[in-house]
């Protein structure tokens, strides 16, 4: 494996300077060689775009940087493709024509840093609201203070008239538990076209992490990126920082992280099943699944002190131990949950109306899934066999045995099946890890600090691959912190799934990717409930792919 990596690194030298660190290969290239590099990676290395990061490094090197992060799952490495962008009239070549999945992240960089992407197929903003944003307000630039708002006061949320009969799902809708707006153009009850407008909740977490917080405080804030899978963000962040600082946390800490991550996955998937059944109108299923979930929540409370937002993670280790009595309790709960879950879930999934409303519904073709770089159960249900736990081993996962469930149904039903199997796998992982916890300290004694060092941390969140990228700054602070939540990669695929479906199935389809809108919307510095919307139309998305 290692030799393969060095070989690839050698090959990549043709495209620019190459730096290799454990699990991360960095290529500093330029615009002219970019296209060839991307094509090479796509064709020969089977690379998958994770995200694009823009960094304002004007204070350091008088330019901006754009970093495309690729995951090469076969080699278990991340490849960072770095481009330098001139300070005056910042612009760089877009890779969206080659990888449609880069659409959102490139536009985000454009909106928040003011870096133009040449050849990007759409001029529409993703996050910025024209007329409602202050001119030249690029909140992720270093000279923009974190406390300054970018919106002009009292914007009105309204939508542009469109052709056809449209049904709005969101921003306020019983099927969505967060403010997002899907506009479905409907004929009869068939969805002809879907539009999406997101980025309505803005907490400015990235900017906050780069300005006010130090690296020890961020794990707790990172945990609050998401209300369901917060711990995975916390772990991804600490892993990124640890990688940047060259720390290896003690084994026991890694085990505890893994156990808690799996507990989080179990409760998240159970929650998802509940939501799915509720959306399908099958409230008994919803109640039962949540009843089964309750011991998991109580277990988390016992192990960490809270049902959610565990707060046990810190740079260099964890804060809380799992003692013998707790181990016993964990085993007990795992057995109980497994028993009840296996007893009921197949009965629920075999109900005629559940099958009818999930099988063949919300199909995401394999080619579309690849093109859009979707992750997690969403990808695995479209027979893309990726799982960060296996492909980029972290925490204690190398010490556990587990299967990665994959299904080729491409529909809502397969997503349910994948999640069902994942719950069982997770329970087995918890059982394995908890029974041989190594006896080491909980965290490293001393955390050394390195300036301007970068690191990538990735975890497999319940919804898919979760990538954090950090560059350390001075005095125990971060220079850049970039979060790519899994839903960010998955939401664009919804527009493909919704087309041609029945309006009644739209909530189930939207729910099927388990979208976490607050994860996706984490970036901005504004805190206003309304803004105008920008659409990502399906036609536009398709045009990216052609």
């Amino acid at each position, binding site marked *: 494996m290692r030799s393969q990596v060095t070989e690839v690194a050698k090959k990549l030298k043709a495209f620019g300077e190459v730096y290799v660190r454990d699990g991360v290969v960095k290529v500093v290239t330029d615009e002219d060689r970019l296209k060839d590099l991307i094509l090479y990676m796509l064709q020969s290395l089977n690379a998958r775009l994770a995200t694009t990061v823009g960094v304002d490094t004007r204070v350091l090197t008088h330019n901006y940087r754009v970093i495309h992060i690729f995951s090469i799952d076969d080699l278990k490495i991340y490849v960072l493709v770095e481009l330098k962008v001139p300070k005056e009239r910042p612009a760089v070549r877009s890779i969206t024509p080659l990888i449609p999945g880069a659409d959102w992240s490139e536009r985000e960089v454009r909106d928040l840093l003011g870096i133009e992407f040449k050849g990007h197929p759409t001029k529409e903003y993703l996050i910025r609201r024209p007329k409602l944003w202050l001119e030249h307000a690029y909140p992720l630039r270093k000279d923009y203070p974190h406390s300054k708002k970018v919106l002009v006061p009292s914007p009105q949320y309204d*939508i542009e008239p469109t052709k056809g009969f449209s049904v709005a799902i969101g921003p306020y809708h019983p099927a969505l538990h967060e403010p997002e707006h899907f506009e479905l153009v409907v004929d009869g009850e068939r969805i002809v076209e879907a539009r999406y407008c997101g980025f309505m909740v803005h907490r400015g977490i990235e900017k906050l992490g780069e300005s006010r917080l130090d690296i020890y405080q961020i794990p707790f804030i990172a945990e609050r990126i998401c209300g369901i899978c917060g711990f995975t963000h916390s772990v991804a962040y600490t892993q990124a920082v640890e990688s940047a600082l060259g720390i290896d946390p003690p084994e026991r800490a890694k085990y505890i992280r893994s156990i808690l991550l799996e507990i989080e996955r179990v409760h998240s998937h159970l929650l998802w099943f509940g939501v799915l059944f509720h959306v399908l109108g099958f409230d008994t299923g919803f109640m039962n699944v949540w009843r089964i979930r309750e011991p998991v929540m109580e277990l988390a409370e016992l192990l960490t002190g809270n049902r959610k937002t565990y707060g046990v993670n810190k740079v260099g280790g964890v804060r809380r131990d799992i003692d013998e009595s707790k181990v016993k309790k964990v085993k007990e709960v795992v057995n109980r949950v497994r028993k009840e879950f296996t007893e009921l879930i197949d009965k629920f999934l075999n109900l005629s109306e559940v099958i009818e409303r999930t099988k063949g519904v919300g199909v995401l073709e394999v080619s579309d899934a690849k093109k859009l770089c979707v992750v997690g159960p969403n990808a695995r249900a479209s027979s893309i066999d990726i799982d960060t736990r296996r492909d980029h081993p972290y925490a204690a996962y190398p010490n556990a045995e587990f299967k990665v469930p994959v299904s080729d149904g491409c529909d809502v039903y397969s997503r349910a099946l994948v999640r069902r199997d994942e719950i069982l796998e997770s329970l087995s992982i918890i059982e394995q890890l908890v029974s041989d916890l190594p006896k080491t300290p909980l965290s490293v004694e001393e955390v050394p600090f390195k300036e301007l060092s970068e690191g990538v941390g990735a975890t497999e969140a319940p919804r898919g691959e979760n990538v954090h990228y950090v560059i350390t700054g001075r005095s125990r602070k971060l220079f850049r912190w970039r979060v790519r939540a899994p839903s960010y990669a998955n939401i664009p695929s919804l527009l493909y799934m919704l087309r041609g479906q029945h309006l009644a199935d739209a909530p189930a389809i939207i729910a099927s990717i388990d979208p976490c809108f607050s994860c996706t919307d984490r970036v901005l510095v504004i805190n206003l409930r309304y803004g105008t919307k920008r659409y990502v139309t399906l036609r536009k998305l398709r045009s990216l792919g052609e």
Partner: protein
Amino acid sequence: MLEGALLKLIEFLEMNNPITLSVILLVASLIVTPFIRGLIGAYISLAVCLFTSSILTLISLKVLITGSVVTLTIPLLPWAKYYPIDLSSVKLVIDPLTAYFTLLLSIIVFASSLYGFGYVLRFRGKEHLGWYGFNYSLFFLAMFLTLSVRDFILFIIFWELMTLSSQFLVSYEKEKPRAVKAGIKYFCISKFGAEYMLIIAITLTTLLAMTTSFSGVGEFLKNLQINDPTLYYLLTSFFMLGLLIKCAAVPFHNWLPEAHPEAPANVSSLLSGTMIKVPIYMMLRLLLDLSNPTPAWGLAIAIIGCVTLFIGTMYALIQVDSKVLLAYHSIGQIGYILLALGTSIYLYSLGNYLLAFIALTATLYHAINHAVFKSLLFLTAGSVVFRLGTRDLNVLGGLGKYMPFTAVCALIAALSISGVPPFNGFASKWMIYFSTMTSSTILSFLGAIAMFISSVTTASFIKYFTTLFTREAKVDVSKVKEVPAPMAIAQGVLAILCILLGLYPMLAIKASKSLAMYLGLSIPKVISYGPIVVTVPGKASISLLLIATLLVITIPIVMAVTKPKIVPRPWVAGVGIRPQHSIPASSYYRDFELVYYEPYGLGRRLYSALCVDFINWLRRSLPKLSLGLENPQNSLPIYIAIALLTYLTIIAGLRWW
């Protein structure tokens, strides 16, 4: 000389009853109007029609109530008296059957003419309004005369005139290609389908019977029924084919949804409300008066009626054009009338007089109910066209706020046609269900289908009403005002009739009693009808007056309890309501359409098999004729030419014989 003529005229008027006056006035308006291009041209004719229809309403009511038969002879062409055709005078007989249909006709003409005073303003400066008036008067006159003559040759001539005048009215807006096309299609089907079939039937019958009078033919047919049923069925088949085509029974319905919507609104209401009832009148005349009821015809008509109501209404469900939707419902409702008629004939022939009589009542009742609510619906659709110029239900909406009176009228009409108690549609439909379902014959199934179709009608009118009046419009409607007074009054009159006819079913029952008496059919003694309750003792009874009274008491109470505060515009999912949020007519019931797809496939197949080829063939072979027909100015010579042609054909045929 002149003085003498004038004296003679006055003498004539004094001697004869007001019917003659009506006819003379209508003929006079025919002479005057073609020469007046402006508004006056139309107004003269509308005023005359208004006046004469009031007179005819009173006369026919009198005939219905007293049961007496009014007869009068109008001298026509003293020299045209060749055997067997006698055109020296026109003999008009107003018996209860004629009177009933004349009543129906004149009520609708009254409302339509009143409505016309406002509606023709639409054509001011654009069209030759004199020709409109001419055709309108002629249409009315022809329908009246068709109903009241007792001679087959005259019948066919007036029938011709009815078709021709209505054809010119259909394509009156001659710059609209759709209207012209619809007119031609209508003409072709009527002419080559209905009329020629009738001409063949009449020629054969009169030749065989050696007489052209109704009574003579009646005797002949009754004899034939006993002696040579095959010939009887052959002759009546020709008649029935012609009549069914004219009343747009499936599978000959295809012309109607194209022709009726294209006419000016008040003419549409005449076409759908009254003209398609004329064949029903003739069927009653032919099968109950001129011959004895036969089970074969009864069953055939009932089945055709059921198919018609099924196909017509199922197709109405998917329409997105206000007047086309209504036109399809005309087919559907004609189906109801045919079903009732067929049931009546069938059950009379079987001897089940109780249910047969109820079915006969239902026939007459539903005929007038349909005339009233369908006319009203066409008038309300016309009011929207009058204000907004469009019939597209996908874009219209929100007019209830700006045209509240029209909206209320449309709601009443929609509830009536849907059969929501206590409106009139329910009463007649109830009679249909009762007479068919409890007969325990094959008709029971037809009744059940009719009952289902009633709910399809309802759904269709939910669409009609809401897309016009309540949900948000996609066009700017904020400047729309209520229609002018004459139009509003006309709508109001019909709306009140919708309610009264439901609450007071005695009219239909009286009419059918006197009709049954006139026809010599037995009136079952076991039936008693109270003034407000329709009762079949021990079997079924409804009192819509009671329901209405209760509603009148409860609705205001409930409304008072739930009185809302009106606040600004609503919102959906956090944003203001936008035009794109209002559900277009095409999106209603799409899934129902997909699941209950059979009738649509069936209808298409029937249509392509029976109609398309024929129509195309006609269109191809008649390009020159159609060119002439596009221009109303050419109408008079063409009338005369075609009437003479028909006339000469018959005479030549007879002479040759």
